[in-house]
């Protein structure tokens, strides 16, 4: 069902954990849908992401996208991190099954939520960053028989 890269990131997730006194922290998703993602960012004075950690409650794809997304933003500037889209995360994982695409949306949202938290704390604006939605939900597809 999953690509080798997804399985690798699921089996050996990178950057699991917490950061104390993080520069920014964001939690997205909801338990009702079965996916919650939390990202911690440690950002230095030059707006470079020095460290990133995540915690995820969710399926294999949710864990793998969290892991991949943290790898993709680590060492990057805040502006560069904004370019880590769900599409980019998905491509880096060699794709996801169609029903799991919403998991990759969650990873992007979680990073944005953590960046938003950082921006709020430091009273700065990050270009292109909007206030995160508190919830991620997708229209459920109704199948007709």
């Amino acid at each position, binding site marked *: 069902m999953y690509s080798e890269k997804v399985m690798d990131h699921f089996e050996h997730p990178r950057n699991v954990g917490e950061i104390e006194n993080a520069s920014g922290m964001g939690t997205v998703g909801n338990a009702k849908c079965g996916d919650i993602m939390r990202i911690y960012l440690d950002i230095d004075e030059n707006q470079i992401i020095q460290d990133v950690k995540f915690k995820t409650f969710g399926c294999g794809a949710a864990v793998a996208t969290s892991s991949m997304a943290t790898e993709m933003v680590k060492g990057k500037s805040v502006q560069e991190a904004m370019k880590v889209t769900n599409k980019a995360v998905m491509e880096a994982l060699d794709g996801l099954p169609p029903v799991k695409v919403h998991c990759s949306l969650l990873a992007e949202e979680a990073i944005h939520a953590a960046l938003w938290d950082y921006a709020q704390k430091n009273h700065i604006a990050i270009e292109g960053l909007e206030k995160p939605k508190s919830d991620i939900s997708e229209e459920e597809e109704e199948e007709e*028989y």
Partner: protein
Amino acid sequence: MSEDKKMIYLDNAATTRTDPQVVEAMLPYFTEYYGNPSSVYEFSGISKKAVTDAREILAQSIGAKTQEIYFTAGGSESDNWAIKAAAEAFGKKGKHIITSKIEHHAVLHTCEHLEKQGYEVTYLDVDEDGMVKLDELKKAIRPDTILISIMFANNEIGVIEPVKEIGRIARENGIPFHTDAVQAYGHVPINVDEYNIDMMSASAHKINGPKGIGFLYIRTGIKIRSFVHGGAQERKRRAGTENVPGIVGFGKAAEIAMASMEERSRREAELRDYLMEKVLAQVPYTRVNGHRTCRLPNNCNFSFQFIEGESLLIMLDMAGICGSSGSACTSGSLDPSHVLLAIGLPHEIAHGSLRLTLSQENTREEMDYVADQITRIVERLRNMSPLYEDFIKHGK
């Protein structure tokens, strides 16, 4: 899976290993006795007799008459046939059907389909153990109720419903009673007269028989029409050349299942309880879903708080263990199992469910290994769960 890796199969509610004795019984009906049972020559008579013999075994196994067993392609077809045909047959009398919230989708989606055709369906609640509430059933009965369809045992949480009482209530009110016994048949004793069952669905592959063959029991006097139109097979009620090898295999599987039921159930229940107790003792924040005693002997269903079921399944698979979950991610929708929601579990706990269904081939050593693997994996997933982090830090 590579051959050197040991596999522990704990998904017998999904399907079972076809018994080699069953396969052996089936084999001649592919290449040797391939005749069509409907043909006139002597050669095809062998196939015809094989079908008759199997039908007799199956009828006897539930206390039915031979002519009351109709072969189908499996449990889903049987459910569809029973409900749609009853709706059609009794539609003049009324358009109200009673079922439960925890039925298999073969029943639920059929009922939903009928709702679009103008039928009204009452979906009965169950209690926190998964038992249909009998007083609600009595209250739900109306003059225009034409069918009660309640499963014998649930496929997810293994609960055995009070079928005898349901049958009695149905009979007292003169309403035909269908039961989906796909999970129960061959695992617990069933007698259609004792339980007042008018129609019953069963499937071979849940009892070490082949896939693609099932039956619908229809009590004499329940006049419902053919589901598949065509030839005169199955007393003109289900057209299509008989799946002779499948039917033979079903008969053999039923024969073995009936003979071994008592000893097998005892063994499975003992192993099941051992596993259940061990997991409950080793893993905190865990619950068992479904009634503890009124349940199928081989069914275990856990909910582990703070983790999600699909992740657990994948990690169990890496450890060579096959199980299933009621998490949304395993169903392809965003909602977790309708059964777990019906017994009152919050969504996040329903997402963290694990169903393990044993067979008599499992051993105590395997249960030890499985319990230890579950303990290790749940701990690992909790350590990366933001829900667990919040719980530890803030107690919520």
